[in-house]
């Protein structure tokens, strides 16, 4: 017996190892459950190394990129200074800054504006296999990530978490054939199921042929799948064919178009409205530039001075009284402080013509709903800035996705959907939020964009 085992030792070991793995496989398939500890061991062993490698790679490439960028900028600045002078150089520099809006900052702004509770994550690896469409991100169950959570970017949905480990999570991308999500079209509210096809565009299944779907139309998440909250962009329709019994719709996923460096995991989703216009065409409100120190406060967004006066608007009650008395003195050719004692004082009850004294500008962030000569009320004095994005990237649209910034600073058209911005019925600007941020100045009575939601809690770190 012993000699028999020795003789067939190799094949015996092979059969035992194969049989053990087949049993392992059968248990998983039959119970539809995973063997978590084996995966946890492997992922816990691999992902820290991958994170370290990613840290070194990011640091070195960032250094090189910054070095090259700064050197180019310096050379470009000198050349421009010689060519056109400082003003033009500054203009070009600002344009470059705008065009190179940092994607990570955009993600941060999106995260702070979306109503869903999100967690920023970074890709650290790809799933094995030539046909695999999974990635690993550096956030795991320690940070609250759970299986089934949605993964998005400001551009659209990316995928969903299919496994969560202590230090990392596996994300199934929208292009994977196993991926599915409930979607709804923007114009006609046609509902369907988004499915990946391995590569390239995704398809939308189960849209009846009676439904109308057009090329160029956008699909959004419907929220029916209980994974993706309603209202997140999915992608644009690139082809529609009449099938039987359903339409054959191809959608270019928008969430993967700018790479998979950074993304957000939705820890707690909040459903949103489907916007009326496509993400790329949605009107975007840009608050006016802050007033310069030497410039007349109250200038509108285009830089035109307010019609009130060229003097500084009073900021306190004392300032208003001082201006009032000065106007009274001017009206009676009286110079305060120059009359001798005993001389007749000016008539302080004299009626001044309207517009003689500027109204008081309050400092608590609430602007008085008073218009002067049909022009907007004066701007604030306290230095609290309206919500202008610091990175020059377009502010988020009402659904949370950033839209293109307008270059001319013109106010946006009024919104068509029901989500109206905070404008009072009488057209006066709405009071500012309680946190001290102000409602931006409104140049022509145009309603500003929807006020941003409060920042969500789950940020990176």
């Amino acid at each position, binding site marked *: 017996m012993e000699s028999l085992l020795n003789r067939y*030792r*190799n094949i015996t*070991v*092979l059969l035992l*190892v*194969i049989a053990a*793995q*087949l049993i*392992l*496989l059968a248990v*998983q*398939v039959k119970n539809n459950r*995973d*063997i978590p500890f*084996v*995966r946890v*061991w*492997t*992922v816990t*062993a*691999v992902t820290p*190394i*991958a994170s370290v*490698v*990613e840290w070194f790679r990011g640091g070195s490439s960032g250094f090189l990129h910054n070095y090259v960028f700064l050197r180019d900028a310096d050379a470009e600045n000198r050349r421009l200074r010689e060519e056109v002078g400082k003003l033009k150089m500054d203009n070009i520099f600002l344009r470059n800054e705008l065009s190179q809006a940092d994607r990570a900052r955009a993600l941060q702004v999106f995260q702070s504006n979306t109503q869903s509770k999100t967690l920023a994550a970074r*890709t*650290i*690896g*790809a*799933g*094995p*296999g*030539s*046909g*695999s469409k*999974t*990635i*690993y991100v550096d956030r795991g169950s320690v940070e609250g990530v759970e299986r089934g959570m949605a993964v998005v970017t400001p551009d659209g949905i990316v995928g969903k978490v*299919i*496994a969560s480990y202590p230090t990392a999570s*596996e994300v*199934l991308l929208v292009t*994977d*054939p*196993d991926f599915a999500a409930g979607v709804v079209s923007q114009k006609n509210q046609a509902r369907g199921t988004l499915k990946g096809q*391995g590569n390239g565009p995704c398809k939308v299944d189960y849209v009846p042929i009676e439904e109308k779907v057009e090329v160029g139309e956008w699909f959004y998440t419907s929220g029916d799948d209980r994974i993706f909250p309603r209202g997140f962009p999915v992608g644009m329709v690139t082809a529609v064919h009449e099938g039987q019994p359903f339409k054959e719709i191809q959608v270019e996923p928008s969430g993967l178009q700018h790479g*998979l460096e950074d993304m957000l995991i939705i820890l707690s989703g909040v459903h949103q409205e489907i916007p009326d216009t496509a993400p790329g065409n949605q009107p975007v409100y840009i608050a006016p530039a802050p007033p310069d120190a030497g410039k007349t406060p109250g200038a509108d967004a285009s830089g035109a001075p307010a019609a009130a006066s060229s003097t500084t608007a009073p900021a306190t009650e004392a300032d208003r009284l001082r201006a009032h008395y000065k106007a009274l003195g001017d009206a009676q050719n009286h110079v305060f402080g120059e009359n001798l004692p005993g001389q007749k004082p000016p008539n302080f009850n004299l009626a001044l013509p309207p517009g003689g004294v500027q109204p008081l500008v309050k400092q608590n962030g609430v602007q008085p709903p008073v218009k002067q000569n049909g022009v907007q009320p004066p701007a604030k004095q306290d230095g609290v800035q309206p919500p202008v994005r610091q990175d020059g990237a377009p502010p988020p649209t009402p659904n949370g996705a950033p839209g293109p910034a307008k270059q001319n600073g013109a106010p946006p058209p009024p919104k068509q959907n029901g989500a109206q911005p905070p404008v009072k019925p009488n057209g006066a600007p709405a009071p500012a939020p309680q946190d001290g941020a102000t409602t931006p100045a409104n140049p022509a009575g145009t309603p500003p964009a929807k006020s941003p939601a409060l920042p969500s809690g789950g940020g990176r770190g």
Partner: protein
Amino acid sequence: MDYSDSRILLSSQRESNTSRFRAWVTVVVALAAILFQFFLPRFFDFLRFVEMPFLVVVYFALVRRSQIGGLLVGALVGLAQDSLSKHPLGMFGIVKTLVGYFAASVGLRIDVDHSMVRLVLTFFFYIFHQVLYWVMVRALLSQPMDLDPQRTALSALLNAVIGVALFHFLDKLRDRA
């Protein structure tokens, strides 16, 4: 080494030049192969076709000429690969176990130091690996999976070329017995 007059077939096992590796070399190389597949496609998606864990399994099985050693390396690397994939544990494990076993069996009979032999063996083992994996996904998991013969053959050829270069590098890490 001049291969012009060397024999490819070995007449006995004593002719074979069994190679041994330090344990840490085996572990580090296998881990590096898995990390390669885990990390690199993120930046170079076209490198997704490179099956580095497969190449490492084939190499260790060929040069160690131990069937049990080959199948164990294949099983462990395959299970580690399974752990990072979306499929149940055991799919890559079974495939690579068989690849390791058969590669070691071939290594007992053929002089695997010959580059052309390595190229041909890697080519055929890659096709065997892909076809077996395809069969298992369809048969055991009942999941649809495409297997493009031309694409598979091209990937096999490219993996074989990469494998020959990799094997040449790994040869420097082995301790000849």
